[in-house]
């Protein structure tokens, strides 16, 4: 009786502690964050149904740290030709006429002491979906991955020395040493 009580007590204690620890390690992880946007832009229609390549709109991802959100003018490249009109598209056109930028809500936020460079990953052949999830099936964009350091290191550890085709070419050039780009050095991301 007494013994059972003690055992039970310890069991509860352990369970509680475990839950607490799990909760603690989830602090600041916003997986599943899907805020409302000023214009209800459905990626499903654009990237999914119409198969517009990600890099057509997010062209900066090829060259810049930031993937960048396309300027309204880029949207107009198509929407000047498409007659289908919705209130959302109307909003967009207003923005273009007034030359007022659309203020989107940022979904994927990294702490300011982390330096993630889109171009490095895009050029290395990492598919956008690897981190952003199946965007082409999302109506409202949502943070698919935890974006924690452990999660980054997951790839960096497993693939650091198994370069993709682009990597292979570059790595071969860099005096046949392992490719430096997916290293585990702190300064790969923190500086």
């Amino acid at each position, binding site marked *: 009786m007494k013994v059972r009580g003690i055992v039970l007590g310890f069991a509860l204690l352990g369970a509680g502690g475990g839950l607490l620890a799990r909760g603690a*390690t989830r602090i600041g992880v916003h997986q599943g964050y899907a805020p409302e946007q000023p214009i209800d832009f459905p990626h499903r229609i654009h990237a999914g149904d119409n198969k517009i390549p990600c890099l057509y709109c997010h062209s900066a991802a090829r060259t810049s740290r930031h993937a960048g959100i396309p300027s309204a003018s880029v949207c107009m490249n198509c929407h000047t030709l498409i007659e289908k009109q919705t209130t959302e598209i109307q909003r967009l056109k207003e923005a273009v006429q007034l030359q007022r930028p659309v203020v989107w809500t940022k979904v994927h936020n990294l702490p300011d002491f982390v330096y993630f460079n889109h171009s490095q990953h895009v050029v290395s052949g990492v598919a956008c979906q690897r981190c952003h999830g199946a965007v082409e099936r999302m109506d409202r964009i949502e943070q698919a991955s*935890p974006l*924690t350091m*452990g999660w980054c290191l997951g790839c960096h550890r497993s693939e650091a020395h198994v370069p993709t085709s682009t990597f292979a070419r570059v790595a071969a050039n860099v005096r046949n040493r392992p490719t430096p780009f997916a290293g585990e050095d702190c300064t790969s991301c923190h500086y």
Partner: protein
Amino acid sequence: MSTGAMEPTAGTGPEIAPATRWIEGTPSLHRITTDISRPMEAKPGRGWWICFGIAGAAVLNLLGMVTYLFAKGIGIWGLNNAVGWAFDITNFVFWIGIGHAGTLISAILLLFRQKWRTSINRSAEAMTIFAVMCAGLFPLIHMGRPWDAFFIFPYFPNQRGPLWVNFRSPLVWDVFAISTYFTISLVFWYLGMIPDLATLRDRAVSGIKKFVFRILSMGWNGSQRTWSRYEIVSLVLAALATPLVLSVHSIVSTDFATSLLPGWHTTIFPPYFVAGAIYSGFGMVLTLLIITRQTMHLERYITTNHLEAMAKVTLLTGSLVGYAYATEFFNAWYSGNVYERFHFINRATGPYAWCFYLMVLCNVLTPQIFWWKRARRSIPLLFIASILVNVGMWFERFVIIVVSLHRAFLPSGWGMFYPTVFDVGILIGVFGLFFSLFLLFIRALPMIAMWEVKGVAND
């Protein structure tokens, strides 16, 4: 150390010298109980209130300053690019050192069968606990950002990959060493109190007091069986605690010994620090006991013989410390290393030379008076000496830390450390914390192990 027991004692009959008596007179066991539990049952006197008032004020000051420190950052201290540690780590090492006497007395002396420990071990252990608590403050506040302190504990799972701590860093060793030492000391102290707690439970009149002591004494029934197991457990714990006494300060000393700074980078630090720690620990025990035995009228149980025995330990460890100082200088000269040589010349002639000489005066010269029996048995002398010892030991840490840092390898990086009001305030505040804890202790718990004293009462 065991000589303490064989010394003939003055005052007892001139003809044949019997073994030292560790209690004056032959009080009945009941008398012992009442004497010792009086402080807990009587109302505190004015003296106590005054002391507690002062100490409490210091604690409030500590709280205020630490809060401000967390808000503003450690820029409010006098630290700088040249001297990255000063009062903070000095206090840390100082208090860890103080925390040595307790467990030494109760554990090692228990193993050595030193009877004279019986009436001082309880308060000495309490002092240890409080000192380690004070010491533990500093690693936390000296970073200025306590909310990040958890980084120093290795834990899993963490979302960083996982990212562990640097097991090569002495600071990590400190975390383990000190927390272990604290836990063991606490357990040892509490375990030692259980029979007395039971006594108090039985004496208690008010219901609430009874209730509390009943919980604390864990249903102690004083049966033969309980006692025999109890003895075994204490012995086992003593065996466990003994190596810790030596390990803690050895590890703290590696904070310095493993660095490459002249004045830090030396192999004699572990024994040197342990000796110093026991030295300062006994100094503090002396100070406390001399006050309490006077104010609490416990002269009968804390006799001059006790004080004399401690004076001898002080003399021994003090001389060890002095020897270590000499060795450092010899090594510096013998090594021929320009940086080492410069450092020790600077220690003795540089801007902080006065600290060095104060340290030598207090730590090496003061205890030498204990070669004379009269000195060992003179309460005033003992008291003054014990104070000086602690002043000296504080300055020893200051000299080791600040003087080594302020003039290191590149002269372009040399600087000076000047304490600010916050450095001094926190130093005082922590003393306040220590004393208020001790004052509460002597009110709330038996400051002398009744059951052990009874053991030596009538031999």
